[in-house]
């Protein structure tokens, strides 16, 4: 499988998925008006990976902002990761949030309540 790299923009995050190393990073802002189109390549790549998983899959979500349109797509990504985990992909999710950003912490907890994979909440300290 090939790497998937999508460079970030003012409204969309950077996405880096390396299936050989079992690493996924989503970083930045996710506030597009139409998020389904944006997340489709990632959801498709995860679908493919689910058929040929690595022993461990490390996921880092480092979002500064995301809109409710993205929140459903992010849930779709997590649902794929849940399947990957069930297929033996050893998924570990790190949900990063900035110090004092209770809304982002709560958003992570919302997903944690829905998705059956261990989440680790990681506080980013302010510089």
């Amino acid at each position: 499988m090939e790497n998937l790299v999508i460079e970030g923009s003012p409204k969309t995050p950077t996405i880096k998925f390396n299936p050989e190393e079992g690493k996924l990073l989503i970083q930045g802002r996710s506030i597009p008006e139409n998020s389904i189109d944006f997340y489709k390549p990632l959801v498709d790549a995860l679908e493919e990976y689910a058929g040929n998983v690595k022993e461990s899959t490390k996921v880092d979500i480092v979002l500064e902002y995301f809109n409710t349109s993205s929140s459903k797509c992010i849930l779709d990504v997590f649902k794929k990761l849940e399947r990957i985990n069930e297929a033996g992909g050893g998924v570990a999710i790190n949900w990063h949030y900035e110090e004092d950003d209770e809304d982002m912490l709560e958003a992570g907890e919302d997903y944690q309540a829905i998705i059956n994979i261990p989440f680790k909440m990681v506080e980013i300290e302010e510089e």
Partner: protein
Amino acid sequence: MDINIYDFYNKMEQDNIMLSFKGNVTSELLTSVLQIMESKMDKLNEPNKIKKKVYNILVEALQNLYHHLDKQPESVPQGHNTVIFMIGKKEDAYTIFTGNYISNGNADKLQARLEKINSLEPEELKTYYKEVLNNGMMSDKGGGGLGMIDIARKSGQKLDFDFQKVDDEFSFYSLNINIPQ
């Protein structure tokens, strides 16, 4: 035209309006408005926490307007396909005002949804959000009815809305979002 721009200016000055717009909403416009508001809040040295909250809520409020226009049939009369929004700051709170035309049929449905959101306590709102997130249908534009729940949750306030009936077909829907600092 009977407009005194000085009166207009004074009114906006009194109400501490930082930014206002009336017209058609495009994706590019939203990008610019968000950038402007972000740099204004930076200049005001707002704490990160309030900056993020206002930004987040603004994204939802403005994208609601955008999707609303996007969904409108072509039969909508001229002038009914523009919107208005304003962003103001008082000492202790930011306020986002939005206004748009809506068909009376949709106004009834929206009002029922907003009333439901307002009837919920914070913990119930959180549960409702997760329910809609997990089970709710997603429209082809990606909106899924989560926007207003998110605004209510993040602002921590009841939604302050109004529907003014314009004629047999249309109402004017206005929403004031108060974000305490």
